[in-house]
């Protein structure tokens, strides 16, 4: 894979050890891949590239000069400094060798996915070591639906510049981090060309039953599920042994599809509205992935997943996001069967039996 590259690491190579040069987001993707959790393929432009670029062009001096003596709550000053730095960065071209590596890696990615001009997401991935957990999420830009070598390089360049958005500068000042001590890595990842997608909880979100997985699915991209636009296909899968316990096929009349620069809502063809949008083997594969992710993180997860048109099963099933399920989903023994304190155990059982006869 990327052994010939100086500034590129494929996600598969982004281990925890690589965190300092690939940043939290990319390292996390690498970690998931290594744990057997499929994520859309891609690569990281490491912070070494960014560092060489900044050093070589003397851009750190611009940064230091722009922010020198600036009070953190002077919004106007921050805005002016940010604009200066970003302008300086964007007007300094990326060195040819770095550019060539990014282009070469992008072309390999296109080949791997069997598509020319593969649409990708280009995201920054902050590397400030002390900030391993203090996520920079949302503080740098993400560029979706980028395709073509030139556009990918441009977006990478913009990601670098986004390290100096007004918000990022303010954040670092308030948190006491130096403006010239942070580096940035960029992740370039295939945009899922979603045939079907949805969400999965590795527990029953209604009862909190941890022995089950629930999956909601619709055609196209997962936004329709997240936004609750359709009544999705929903599946309940028992974890051990893995088996489908319930399938309800919903009326799926709308879906999100790609339109080249994003997604848009469109009607689902009528013959597809009431047929399952994922097969039994896909349900099982999704559930299997859920188990894998839950095991990896050690607690129930809320996972967004998608099945990609460009690749073949099972390599086309991806986890696109995963977060721990919040405590809200942990309803255990229902209140209606709770014993009042002071009542005997046997008396309580008899009360419940009598209630049962009254059902």
């Amino acid at each position: 894979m990327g052994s010939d590259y100086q500034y590129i690491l494929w996600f598969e190579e982004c281990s925890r050890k690589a965190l300092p040069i690939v940043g939290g987001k990319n390292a996390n993707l690498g970690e998931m891949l290594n744990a057997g959790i499929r994520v859309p393929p891609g690569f990281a432009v490491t912070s070494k590239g960014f560092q060489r670029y900044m050093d070589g062009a003397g851009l750190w001096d611009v940064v230091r000069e722009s922010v020198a003596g600036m009070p953190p709550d002077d919004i106007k000053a921050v805005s002016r400094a940010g604009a200066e730095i970003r302008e300086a960065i964007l007007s300094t071209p990326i060195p040819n060798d770095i550019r060539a590596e990014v282009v070469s890696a992008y072309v390999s990615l296109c080949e791997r996915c069997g598509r020319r001009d593969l649409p990708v997401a280009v995201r920054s991935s902050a590397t400030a070591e002390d900030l391993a957990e203090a996520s920079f999420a949302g503080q740098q830009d993400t560029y979706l639906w980028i395709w073509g070598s030139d556009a990918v390089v441009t977006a990478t360049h913009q990601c670098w510049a986004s390290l100096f958005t007004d918000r990022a500068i303010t954040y670092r000042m308030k948190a006491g981090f130096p403006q010239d001590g942070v580096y940035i890595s960029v992740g370039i990842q295939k945009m899922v060309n979603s045939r079907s997608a949805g969400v999965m909880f590795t527990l029953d979100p209604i009862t909190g039953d941890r022995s089950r997985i629930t999956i909601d699915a619709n055609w196209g991209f997962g936004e329709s599920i997240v936004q609750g636009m359709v009544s999705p296909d929903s599946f309940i899968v028992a974890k051990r042994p893995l088996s489908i316990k319930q399938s309800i096929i919903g009326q799926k009349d709308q879906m999100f599809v790609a339109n080249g620069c994003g997604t848009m809502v469109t009607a689902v063809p009528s013959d597809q509205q009431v047929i399952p949008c994922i097969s039994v083997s896909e349900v099982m594969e999704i559930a299997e992935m859920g188990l894998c992710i839950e095991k990896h993180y050690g607690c129930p997860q809320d996972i967004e997943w998608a099945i990609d048109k460009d690749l073949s099963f099972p390599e086309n099933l991806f986890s696109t996001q995963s977060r721990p399920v919040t405590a809200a989903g942990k309803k255990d023994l229902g209140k209606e069967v709770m014993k009042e304190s002071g009542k005997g155990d046997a008396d309580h059982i008899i009360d419940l039996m009598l209630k049962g006869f009254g059902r």
Partner: protein
Amino acid sequence: MKMYDVVPGFEFDEKVDLEKSPAWFLDATHSVPPWTPMFGWFWINFCRHGMQYGAEKLSLPTVKGWDWRFKDGGGYLTLNLVMDEEERKARGVRFREAIRPFIDDYDGLWGGYINEMLGHYKRLKSCNVESATNAELLANFEDTINVCRRMWEIHMHMMYGVDTAFILFENICKDALGIDDTHPTFHDMLRGFDNKVFQVDRELWKLSKKAEEMGVADTILNSSSGEALTSLGESEAGKKWLGHLKVLLDEDGWRMQRMAEINLPAWVEDPTPAIASVKFFLKQGGDFNLDKEREGLARRREEATKEVLDRIPQDQQGWFKMLLGLAQKTGAFSEEHNHYLDLYTHSLMRRSCLAIGKRLVAAKVIDHPEDTFFLMPDEMRAVTLVPDGFNLRHIVDRRRKEWKEWCSRENPPAILKEGFTMDDAMGVLVQSNDPIALKVVVGSMPVPKPELNADLYGICGSGGVAEGPARVIMQEAQLDEVQKGDILVAASTAPSWTPVFGLLNGVVVDRGASLSHSAIVSREYGIPCVINVFEGTSKIKTGQRIKVDGNNGVVYLLDK
């Protein structure tokens, strides 16, 4: 002599009985194929009595047991619902005290009943049927009738009690914890317990080891089960081994081949089924596999219990554990009561009938001892003391002819009043909240899951997935055909089939519920079992490769 009804007073009378209740259900578990008249008389009278006794003794709020009728060899039942709200309330108050022994001292209650019944059996067996006078045989017959009545009282008192607890446990798991009775965790919490039926099987396994030591294993393996008895009798070692078998069967061989009938020999009379079990163990080799299974199951049970308890607040765990303990007893009871109650009593009913039958043959009243199965107790009473001059052949002939006719066609699954549908009838059953009806008659109906694209849809009796050649077995005599790795396909299974499970990869039965024999034993053997597929025995052919998916409750036919 004039002929009377088969079960006087309880023959199905469409006009009268459909007025009493608009829906009567066939007890397909016990009365298919149709009963002989004598057995039908015992069942209709005393199962009916026992259910009403049990429901009254427990003062169940919603149901006063069942009413039964006899029709063409079939047992038809309906529920005695408590309709009045005040009456329900009053029954509920008494229920509170009546159910308590089950919770406070289950083992004492059941253990006491077992001792009582073993006492009755000992008394019945103490009658030497060869040397007794006719008067003593008749007294033994009357005693047997009383013992049968008492057996059903105990049977239904216990069964209503444990099933009430089991259903509560099921509902708590399902409604409050989201674990239904098709859920592996549910079964994991309940399995891995020993019971009397398994203990007898373990003794038979020991006899298989003994057969190897004594050098008679090949004799058993190389002859069909029918011939094995003769072949063993031809050698000294074989005779000695049969002696060991007799010791076991004198104690534990009072069981019938068919669960609810007396027209086939008991094990103690004809040890062929016991030898067949030994043969299964020899074919299989190795250790008594249930013991090995049980270790793993017990470990899984601990894990599953902990997993569930983790979701229950500390202050609620006491009653939950108590209820779980009671539910765990239910599986053992479901298996073990057959041994101590039905099968034991039925074998003594047969013994008593045949003993009198022999005297009647000698007095030329009938032609064969088995003809007594076509007589009624009143007729037995009329002729046993002084049989001289009686000829009951015309009664026997006519009833046997009728019985053969019953056997040649199928009894309808329900008899409904005009304008009353099966759905209405099912509604009444559900409304009764009758624990036995819910677990035995209604059960869980399979829900087709089109996305699985299976050939047969049933419900999960025991989890797991297995593939193998199907072995369709319609009666116990065919069990000999079972090979290691087969998937058993049957209408239902009975306790004497248990040892065969050790050879099986999976089980498919037409009818059953989560507390039926096939489901319980499959869980204990850790093999998949799909129940309530309805058409298994008619759609699957022996030798066909099938896949049993116990988790999803479906069956696939791999070569069609």
